[in-house]
């Protein structure tokens, strides 16, 4: 063995003598430069977090300030309970009452949830327990894929495919319904029932995907316990899985409900925009989000203020839903909140398994080992043993049948959407389609989507440039900086986290209107910049939460290894934490981008749209989702619908591509780890 490393100081201490003690070789103080670097890191993260919060605070302030006129003229109660909405009367004062829109929002969301939640649970059960193992992966992949399809595409499909298909059936219902008054009356092309159905189809994949994640966390020993008592598959589900997953299902449903309440485009297209309270479910109505999007273009002064007040109401409703969900989840037993939060944010972040696995290997030894996730198959029954009683068997078969029925009911429309996108969209695609501008009006055949494609890419770039650095720094603030700076800072960190969670639930239409009031009005015109910032605001909380989740998973042992070597805080972050978290952060950012790039609603208020190819970030610009919406909302001609399907195909392909890359990153890094 070679001699140990030579001292820097040179002089070897005398050994073993009390008189000859060694000298200190290293200072106990730190060079100023190193301390400054650490301070800079702390301040950078703090500033990023506070700047993001201040920016959002400013938007909220501008929005709230805009609505002052409404409250002073109509009163809060008067506005909320007013049943009439006459923004531009022939003579006299305009009248603004929010009730029809609140009613429309709640009714459509209620229909959507009533249809979607049971089906989603069925799909989740089928893809975790009941389907043969080989089918589970592919079916849940299709469901995941549909969760990524943007709502404008669901709206397009609803209006062009579902409405004409279901119309005869609905007409039959309205004629033969007898005493069912709520299904009476003439069938209009836009109706609560149809809107609710389309909403249900839209939110089903996300609820199913999260519920499935939650089912996958049911501990193996609980499942084995049920099987060991001789339970059938269904009895295992009923006794072990559902009780454990209850809070997770509540969380997933609340997330779906939040989406449904804030959904703009599909309802603007499908509900008919008639402010109604009560009336037949086969008749038209209007929702908060829908009316904001549809009337924004011609709204000025009080009308604009009233629409902003509606946005505020919508924000409050979404906030209440989120808060209630949190309360319910926190109270219920079983999985508990952290589980649901993990499921919510981990969705699609498949690569996280990696880091979590590593954490278990290299943890600090204080944690208990996590329960092994997985789904247990029931044991084969041996001949000669007493079999399950007939009534139990019948009940189990019935339950299983119901699950398969739910799966079928869910997959048929979902499959139909994918089919229609490909059938109608694919033929439109050509090089010309991608490289020519859109035609001047809905009656001119030909043309393409180059202006929208370029606009979407530019705004995606701006959104990422805004959201990714701010998001990562904010997550570092919450997770690393604030936690390390004492209880006061930790509270600020928690507050920022809470703020981010609120932001996560803000409907995109509200984001759009807010950016219009604070930015577009200040700048004097609609612009790609404003659109990009609005999309960035949608991405930001997703990036923060995804990053935060990943940072939590970086093993403490790794941080400590660096710290024990005398690494300054920023060094530990840059050299150890971020490299370990990078794939996850990248995946999360990609998924956030995929989500934002499909948004049409915020763009109506910010980038507006533009007929021609433009790359000027300070001028209005087109985008794919906005082009699809514009082509459906006014006049539908064969030419305009063809263009819309083509654009939808490109948009969906783009989003799926982003999702695919995100997953590949996750998978690739995992295979590296496992080795």
């Amino acid at each position, binding site marked *: 063995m070679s001699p140990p*490393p030579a001292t820097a100081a040179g002089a070897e201490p005398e050994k073993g003598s009390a008189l000859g003690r060694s000298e200190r070789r290293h200072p106990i103080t730190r060079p100023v430069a190193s301390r400054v670097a650490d301070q800079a890191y702390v301040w950078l993260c703090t500033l990023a977090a506070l700047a993001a919060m201040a920016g959002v605070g400013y938007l909220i302030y501008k929005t709230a300030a805009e609505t002052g006129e409404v409250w002073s003229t109509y009163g809060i109660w008067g506005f909320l309970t007013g049943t009439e909405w006459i923004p531009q009367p022939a003579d006299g004062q305009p009248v603004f009452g929010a009730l029809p829109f609140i009613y429309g929002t709640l009714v459509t969301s209620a229909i959507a949830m009533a249809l979607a939640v049971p089906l989603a649970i069925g799909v989740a059960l089928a893809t975790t327990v009941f389907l043969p193992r080989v089918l589970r992966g592919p079916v849940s992949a299709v469901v995941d894929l549909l969760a990524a399809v943007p709502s404008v595409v669901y709206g397009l499909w609803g209006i062009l495919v579902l409405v004409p298909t279901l119309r005869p059936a609905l007409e039959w219902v309205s004629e033969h319904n007898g005493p069912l008054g709520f299904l009476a009356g003439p069938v209009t092309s836009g109706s609560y029932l149809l809107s609710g159905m389309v909403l249900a189809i839209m939110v089903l994949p996300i609820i199913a995907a999260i519920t499935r994640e939650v089912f996958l966390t049911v501990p193996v020993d609980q499942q084995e316990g049920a099987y060991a008592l001789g339970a059938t598959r269904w009895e295992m589900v009923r006794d072990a899985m559902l009780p454990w997953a209850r809070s997770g299902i509540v969380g997933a449903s609340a997330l779906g409900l939040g989406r449904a309440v804030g959904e703009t485009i599909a309802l603007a297209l499908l509900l008919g925009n008639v402010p109604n309270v009560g009336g037949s479910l086969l008749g038209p109505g209007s929702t908060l989000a829908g009316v904001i999007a549809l009337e924004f273009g011609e709204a000025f002064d009080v009308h604009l203020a009233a629409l902003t007040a509606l946005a505020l109401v919508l924000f409050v409703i979404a906030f209440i839903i989120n808060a209630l969900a949190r309360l319910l989840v926190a109270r219920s037993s079983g999985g508990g909140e952290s589980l649901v939060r993990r499921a919510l944010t981990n969705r699609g972040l498949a690569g996280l398994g990696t880091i979590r696995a590593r954490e278990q290997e290299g943890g600090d030894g204080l944690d208990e080992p996590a329960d092994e996730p997985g789904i247990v198959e029931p044991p084969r029954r041996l001949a000669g043993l007493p079999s399950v009683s007939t009534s139990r068997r019948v009940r189990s078969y019935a339950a299983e049948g119901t699950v398969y029925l739910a799966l079928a009911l869910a997959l048929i429309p979902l499959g139909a959407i994918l089919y229609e996108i490909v059938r109608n969209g694919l033929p439109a695609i050509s090089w010309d389609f991608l490289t020519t501008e859109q035609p001047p009006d809905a009656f001119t055949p030909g043309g393409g989507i180059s202006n929208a494609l370029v606009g979407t890419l530019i705004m995606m770039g701006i959104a990422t440039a805004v959201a990714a650095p701010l998001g990562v720094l904010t997550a570092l603030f919450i997770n690393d900086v604030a936690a390390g700076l004492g209880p006061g800072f930790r509270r600020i960190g928690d507050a920022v986290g809470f703020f981010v969670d609120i932001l996560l639930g803000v409907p995109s239409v509200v984001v759009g209107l807010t950016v219009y009031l604070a930015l577009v009005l200040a700048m004097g015109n609609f612009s790609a910049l404003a659109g990009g910032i609005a999309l960035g605001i949608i991405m930001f909380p997703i990036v923060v939460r995804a990053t935060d989740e990943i940072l939590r998973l970086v093993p403490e042992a790794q941080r400590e290894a660096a710290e024990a070597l005398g690494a300054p805080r920023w060094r530990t972050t840059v050299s150890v934490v971020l490299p370990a978290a990078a794939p996850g952060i990248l995946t999360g950012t990609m998924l956030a981008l995929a989500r934002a790039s499909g948004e049409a609603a915020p763009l109506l208020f910010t980038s507006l749209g533009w007929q021609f190819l433009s790359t000027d970030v300070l001028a209005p610009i087109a985008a794919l989702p906005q082009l699809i919406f514009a082509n459906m909302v006014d006049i539908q001609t064969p030419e305009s619908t063809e263009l819309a399907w083509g654009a939808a195909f490109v948009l969906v392909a783009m989003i799926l591509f982003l999702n695919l890359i995100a997953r590949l990153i996750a998978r690739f890094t995992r295979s590296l780890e496992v080795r």
Partner: protein
Amino acid sequence: MSTEQSTARATEAPPGPSAPPPSAPSAPPPLRTRGLGAFFGSHKAIEDIDLDFEDNTVTALIGPSGCGKSTYIRTLNRMHENVPNARIEGDVELHGESIYGRAADPVAIRRAIGMVFQRPNPFPTKSIADNVLAGPKFNRIRLSRRERQDLVERVLRAAGLWNEVKNRLRAPAGGLSGGQQQRLCIARALSIDPDVLLMDEPCSALDPQSTDRIEELIDQLKERVTIVIVTHNMQQAARVSDRTAFITIETDGEPGRLVETGPTSDIFNAPSKPATEAYVSGRFG
């Protein structure tokens, strides 16, 4: 490396009574704790521990599970304060200077007092060489290519790992066996030449052969650094340590306290406290 360090010392070390001449009769030991207690929130895990750790000496900390050995050893390089709401009372002195004093900085302290953890924690995706070089890199010690190669070879040899890994220095450290990983962690800790090396059950996750190698290693390293080792293995304590300190919790809910300390042979053969006797003989079985 050397110039940077000596200039750093010249400018950074506060002058005054805290830096006595090395051979004064009253020279303080490299590491010493005075009335040291540690809290997790309101829970007091250890109390009033006075210990001196001498040059060229391996001190073993023994005691039942939960008595606070890990907590104690983590106060010695200020890792304890990483736990939210954790704090200490009393003091720890490095060569007579308080490491919890106003001027002292935890980053500098950890650079001067190295630590090896119970579970090997190399940076799994970094290469073996980069694991060793992480220490200088984190401390902004600039090395030439040649110095880097020398350093890697020297500390890997010192950790008894060189022959096993010399042909795959660029391979990720995650691919090493547990014993190799732990020796790599020791090499990594040695790369910045600490004054003191803390080891918290460094062999408890390892097989007997790897354990032997690390024990040999400890014996060689004490020439150079003051070593504090926590162990549950009495034979190990007897084999590697010169002095032993026994910490225990007398009644449930109380903090862990130092029962006695002395030369290892005395503690194992002629302990002065019945509690030590009981623990040592029980564990020797």
